[in-house]
């Protein structure tokens, strides 16, 4: 990654805390707007950050969401301590979700988060280890 970044911010995300959920991505969106990025880029970054944040809240124990803006690109990195993903290919399918009934009642669990992240980013990478955690890196060029 380009070391000569313009803006870098990190947020601790707590698993299962639905009251704070979305706060990090809202703050990320505000900052990206402030530095004058165009609205389509901001929207794609906000959607990616939100879905990554919610996956930590819903599926992991805790994690960190880091956004780095460098000349020409935004990177969003979501790293968590959690159960990991057994089958990434399956997890990437639209409609696949292991979310609990409780979480589904709140409107999560459509199985659209990972596909949304992939669609919104120009580069999408996911690394996971069962019983350890998951790392999702998304890059958006502007």
């Amino acid at each position, binding site marked *: 990654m380009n070391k000569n970044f313009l803006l870098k911010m990190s947020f601790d995300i707590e698993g299962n805390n639905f009251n704070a959920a979305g706060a990090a991505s809202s703050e990320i969106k505000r900052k990206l707007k402030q530095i004058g990025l165009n609205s389509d880029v901001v929207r794609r970054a906000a959607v990616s950050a939100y879905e990554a944040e919610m996956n930590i809240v819903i599926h992991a124990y805790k994690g960190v969401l880091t956004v780095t803006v460098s000349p020409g690109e935004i990177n969003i990195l979501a790293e968590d301590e959690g159960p990991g993903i057994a089958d990434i290919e399956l997890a990437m399918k639209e409609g696949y979700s292991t979310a609990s009934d409780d979480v589904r009642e*709140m*409107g*999560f669990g459509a199985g659209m988060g990972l596909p949304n992240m992939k669609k919104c980013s120009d580069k999408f990478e996911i690394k996971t280890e069962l019983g350890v955690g998951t790392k999702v890196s998304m890059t958006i060029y502007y």
Partner: protein
Amino acid sequence: MKLNEVVQRLNLEVKTCKENLDREVTGGYSSDLLSWVMAHANEGNIWVTVQSHQNIIAVAVLLNLSAIIIAEGVEVEDSVLQKAEEEGIPVLTSSAPVYQICGEMYQMGIKEGEV
């Protein structure tokens, strides 16, 4: 069309941000699945749902929606309204079914999607 006109024609109850009803509505979207809304709703859209959990406010802020209509007489907790007020998101409620609300808005010329 302005939000104000939608509120009047559909007889919606304005729960938050009475001062933000001057905004232009760019279209409408309806789903109760948040990731579907994230994927398909556009800036300035009105979102019709029966979800009332506070995460709907984060979704509306992130997408810069013009308002949320909570249909079917679903109760909204004060904490959610407070958050909406802080974030500047008008929360509108109605006892009418989602289907009817969407139908009426469609007839008024509010179509799905594009900004």
